[in-house]
């Protein structure tokens, strides 16, 4: 068993990073925690510090001001870490791609392992995306 398999075998802890989003994806991520979707049945839970996290969920476009913070957060995360870009903005820049404060989609700044498109993606889509990624690792 390699290091990667060993790291991601048990409960995943998620860290939520809002780069420059409209709150839509963020509240859908929180929705995953609530009784209807209940992501904790898979052992996943949101943690406060990236130093405890296995997965970083990034929402929204990367703005000029959050670019350095995202790099810093990635540096602080224990490796191996999985980065999931959630929402159209994080994947491609979406509707904000033509703005002057847009500083590239997430994959221009940090390596991204999975993309979950949608504006916003439904909580089911997020769950399916993360489970699919886990099975692949």
């Amino acid at each position, binding site marked *: 068993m390699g290091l990667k398999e060993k790291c991601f075998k048990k409960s995943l802890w998620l860290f939520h990073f809002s780069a420059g989003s409209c709150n839509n994806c963020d*509240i859908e991520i*929180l929705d995953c925690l609530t009784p209807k979707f209940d992501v904790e049945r898979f052992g996943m839970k949101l943690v406060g510090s990236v130093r405890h996290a296995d997965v970083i969920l990034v929402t929204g476009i990367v703005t000029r*001001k959050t670019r350095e913070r995202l790099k810093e957060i990635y540096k602080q995360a224990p490796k191996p870490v999985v980065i999931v870009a959630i929402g159209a903005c994080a994947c491609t820049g979406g509707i904000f791609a033509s703005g002057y404060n847009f500083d590239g989609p997430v994959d221009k700044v940090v390596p991204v392992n999975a993309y979950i498109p949608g504006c916003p993606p439904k909580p089911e889509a997020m769950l399916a995306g993360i489970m699919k990624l886990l099975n692949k690792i």
Partner: protein
Amino acid sequence: MGKRTLVPIGPYHPLLEEPEFFKLYCDGEIVKEVVWETGYNHRSIEKICESKTFEQVFYVVERICGICSTSHPFAYANAVESIPGVDVPIRAKYIRTIIGELERIHSHLLWVGLAGHFLGYNTVFMWAWKYREPVLDMFEIITGNRNSYAMFTIGGVRRDIKEEQYPQLEKLLDEFKPKLDLITGAVMDDPVLHARLKGVGVLTAEDIHDFGAVGPVARASGVDIDVRRDDPYAAYDMVDWKVITAQAGDVFAKAEVRLLELYESISIIRQCIEGLKKEKGGEIKAKVKEIPPGIGIGRAEAPRGEVFHFVKSDGSNSPVRHKVRAPSFTCIPTFRRSCVGGTIADAAISLAAVDPCYCCTERMAQVYNYSTGKRIMNAAELIKLSQKRTEEFKTKFLKG
């Protein structure tokens, strides 16, 4: 001035959904000063809107904020429609009102849940968010999406509420009422919450006037303002409802106002469904050929307060200038009165009590020459310019 300790909250903090940075300067346990740093979430929306057509701007302003994603299109529609003076069909007005009020329900429930979460009362968080789900499902039935509805267009709405959806909507309200009673009871009758929230983060009516705060924050301090009543738009003058106010101005009063507003929302939606039944087979969209040159101003009461949109048209198919002022812009600076003098432990809930939405508020105040990178104007100069222009407008328009 004694010794002060800086307690930083953010920009990435477990308590915060969005990136923003608070610096609390404390003397012991007591907060002496709050400084708020912003700009993390700025997405240059006003500029993007200028490159879109009037129809396309709806989808951009919808994404200013994901929680109040109808209030911005609402205000923008009011602004654009005021330029040519469009008569929106009555059926479209009812549909707009239903969407707006459903959104208020989901947004206030979200706030109640988050406020409970900030207090460490996670039961309320789970309850409120669980009972919010049927509302989102209803949105999915009516509009096809859970959060960004894309319902509005110039002159009306894009989708009709079908006749077979009325009973579903009524059933939702019938089922929601007892759950709302449960949540209201859990908050209003809880001695622990009384002890925790009463007298915390107090804002007087004078503070509200000083900062120009709007919405539930103002109403909780006894300032009776509501755009829905003061400057009626859509179907709000065709239905019967009342503005909820409270006098105390503390966090508890803000929770009380928001919870009681939900009952009004239910009653408004019920009356709108009756109205839709009467307006059977009516038009849902007025034909608008072009937007003539002119200035349009639109206001709407978002769950957090008054949203203001300014649109300037030169007769082409896209706005020349589009300005947005979200309610949080005036509500957030009230931190300086509500947090200062309290303890650090009270700061979080005082901050959360105004239901701040940072992605609505983010703005940048600088003018750059894009090709040379040289700064032409900074924030202070822009404020001066704005005051000068306001004076010009005043002398021009208010003379007669």
